């Protein structure tokens, strides 16, 4: 075989002296590889978005729904079920999820907007070890009530109740320039003094600064509530203008009517140490760590696309949530949860327990959060279900998340589940993944079809080229070229077309991708999970495009190269 250096030099020289041939041959490859890269990058991105929407690493085991005379008669998923599943050889891990089994209502301030939302039915719990997305989540997502020696758990006076509000806004942190609280443990001043029960009653018009100084009775109270929901910042729950309570709360607490020129009462601030994370619990009257919750990317997207737009509220993508927490601390994402309350009237009769309020805080966005709702450490849900619905609700899991050692073992595991009277939850993600797989296959077929046409074109061009170079091939043979030397030279030229055509094809795809991204950023309306870039140009896509391009071109040049090699030198030289 001829020396590699000579081969490269000859191939490059031949390529450079036939630009027309090169362009004609490379054109199809550029288009084919461009389509190949673009399609793969597009479907790759689609897959990534899909994985964001539907985490596909695990499967969810549920009990088939069975109802008997309107009562749920489904098989129970409990700790023994988890143990049985864990004993399966194909199972790597099994973690139960527990739904909140009774009504609960949430209320929180988001960027100056007073949000009220339903939590019952939209909350579940998982073991904290399962939720490990980032450092903040790893630090805060745990059962704080189980901490044995929490020095911050000290006595405190909770904020006043509002008879017109099931759940009040989570009070804010005392600003530095605010007047000092009368007592460290009793920031709630007001007319009720240190008696919290009294204060709750007397602070009838708790929400809303508009109540201040108004002595207009119940009419004022109404306006007070209105202003509160109109978005006065967190912590606006004013203390003690007992005015509004004159008809309602006032009578409940037996407080005397206020003097006409009573000074504006001080605002209630969170009195707890580390108020970022701790709040004063209404029931226990001690400072407790807020219940840590995580949201799914789906919730954030739903908020952005359905809620924020229609309610004129600020957008909050995942990064914004993190940004807010970073800039303003965890308290930026705090909210109150009224256990036993509901925003849906007529549905609160499932439990006879006295409603109460706890505070929660969003500690991050997690792939492990329930798709629509909030997820918290399972211990909280277990205790609350026990408190409000009894022991069965505390131990009946809604589903069990199973991680298999190998996804290929899904079929036998699924069969075993059916035998146990259980099943895998229908996964929309799996269906979408199948659709994307089919689309990717379709795109690949189109790309390969273009490449095959390009290969035929290359073969045709090389046949012409070889025919035109008969004499040259004869000369090379006459001065010592072997058949394989001639074949290598032709294949080398084909490979150069493949490499250069591949690179140009990749650049074409990148150009089209960038142009489309630029257009789509402004020209296509926002929709859930709209990506910033529509294409994911992974290294493996580029590499495989180059390999394919080169291989296809070599394939196209093979027959002409073989013909050139088999050419009798005497005949090649005779045709002059």
């Amino acid at each position, binding site marked *: 075989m001829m*020396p590699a250096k000579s081969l490269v030099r000859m191939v490059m020289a031949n390529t450079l002296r036939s630009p027309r041939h090169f362009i004609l041959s490379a054109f199809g490859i550029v288009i084919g590889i461009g389509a190949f890269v673009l399609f793969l990058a597009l479907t790759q991105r689609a897959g990534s978005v899909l994985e964001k929407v539907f985490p596909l690493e695990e499967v969810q085991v549920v009990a088939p729904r069975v109802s008997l005379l309107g009562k749920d008669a489904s098989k129970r998923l409990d700790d023994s079920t988890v143990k049985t599943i864990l004993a399966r050889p194909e199972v790597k891990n099994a973690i139960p999820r527990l739904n909140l089994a009774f009504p609960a209502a949430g209320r929180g301030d988001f960027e100056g907007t007073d949000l009220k939302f339903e939590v019952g039915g939209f909350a579940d719990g998982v073991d904290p070890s399962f939720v490990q997305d980032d450092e903040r989540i790893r630090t805060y997502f745990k059962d704080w009530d189980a901490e044995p020696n929490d020095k911050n758990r000290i006595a405190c006076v909770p904020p006043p109740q509002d008879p017109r509000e099931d759940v009040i806004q989570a009070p804010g942190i005392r600003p530095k320039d605010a007047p000092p609280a009368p007592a460290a443990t009793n920031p709630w001043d007001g007319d009720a003094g240190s008696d919290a029960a009294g204060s709750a009653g007397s602070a009838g018009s708790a929400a809303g600064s508009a109540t201040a100084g108004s002595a207009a009775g119940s009419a004022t109270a109404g306006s007070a509530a209105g202003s509160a929901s109109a978005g006065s910042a967190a912590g606006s729950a004013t203390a003690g203008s007992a005015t509004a309570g004159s008809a309602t709360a006032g009578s409940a607490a037996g407080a005397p009517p206020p003097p006409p020129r009573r000074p504006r009462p001080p605002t209630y601030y969170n009195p707890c140490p580390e108020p970022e994370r701790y709040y004063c619990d209404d029931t226990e009257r001690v400072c407790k760590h807020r219940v840590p919750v995580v949201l799914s990317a789906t919730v954030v997207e739903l908020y952005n696309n359905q809620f924020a737009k229609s309610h004129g509220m600020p957008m909050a993508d995942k990064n914004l949530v993190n940004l807010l927490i970073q800039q303003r601390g965890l308290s930026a994402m705090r909210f109150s949860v009224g256990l036993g309350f509901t925003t849906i009237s007529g549905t609160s009769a499932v439990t006879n327990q006295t409603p109460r309020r706890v505070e929660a805080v969003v500690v991050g966005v997690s792939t492990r959060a329930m798709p629509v709702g909030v997820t918290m450490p399972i211990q909280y849900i277990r205790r609350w279900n026990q408190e409000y619905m009894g022991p069965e609700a505390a131990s009946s899991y809604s589903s069990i998340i199973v991680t298999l050692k190998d996804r290929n073992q899904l079929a036998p595991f699924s069969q075993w589940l059916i035998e146990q009277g259980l099943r895998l939850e229908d996964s929309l993600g799996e269906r979408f993944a199948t659709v994307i797989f089919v689309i990717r296959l379709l795109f690949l077929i189109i790309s390969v079809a273009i490449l095959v046409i390009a290969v035929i074109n290359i073969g045709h061009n090389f046949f012409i080229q070889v025919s035109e170079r008969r004499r*040259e091939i004869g*000369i090379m*043979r006459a*001065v*010592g070229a072997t058949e394989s*030397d001639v074949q290598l030279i032709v294949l080398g030229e084909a490979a150069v077309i493949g490499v250069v055509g591949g690179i140009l094809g990749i650049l074409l795809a990148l150009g089209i991708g960038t142009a489309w991204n630029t257009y789509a950023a402004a020209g296509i309306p926002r929709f859930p999970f709209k990506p910033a870039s529509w294409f994911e140009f992974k290294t493996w896509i580029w590499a495989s495009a180059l390999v394919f391009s080169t291989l296809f071109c070599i394939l196209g040049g093979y027959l002409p190269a073989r013909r050139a090699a088999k050419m009798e*030198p005497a005949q090649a030289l005779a045709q002059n």
Partner: protein
Amino acid sequence: MAKAPVVRLRDVTKSYGVGAAKTQVLRGVSLDVQEGELVALVGQSGSGKSTLLNIIGTLDQPDAGEVEVLGTDLAKASEHRRAQLRNRSIGFIFQAFNLMDHLTCLGNVTIPAAFSHDARDVEARGREAMRRVGLSDFAARFPSELSGGQKQRVAIARALFGAPTLLLCDEPTGNLDSETGREVIDFFRELNAKDKVTLLIVTHERRISSVAQRVIAMRDGMIVETSDEALSAHGGGPS
């Protein structure tokens, strides 16, 4: 013990085409060419001279018969060995020059080096070959810039690049005017005399016949006459 001939042919036959279109080009040709000989191969067009030359030069293969060139039995030699012979030991000179138009003169002269692993002094050897044919100043020129005689001299320089022991020339003066043709013939004589290169020249040129030590005449694919006396008859020959 007598030295083995540089070329040894025995009963070589060759035909082209099949069926009714089959043409017998060589019909049992036997021939020996000794080292240092200058042999002229003459005959009318279609008599099989060029085919015989191509078979000796391993550019073509016989249908039957034995061909031994420079001690190598071509029937048994591998494709690689035959290419090696063409690259190192056999030089070709054609009537149509057969230069590569996209290469410079020096590039054409050194093209055999592209297929050889002997990469020593390629340019120097190329320039030396060009000097020998009197084209030292034409190294950077392209063939399209040269006259017919100059082109043939570049082709001769290419043939000499590998310092061959056997030079096969197919109508080397066919496309040249008589003056240039005479210069080429003189060069061949000198090459044969000084460098002891064996030359086998297919020609119609009477002058070449006159300087050849042996003239072999062919007709209808057969050797019809071998004249060892041609040299003395025409008063030429190596000096």
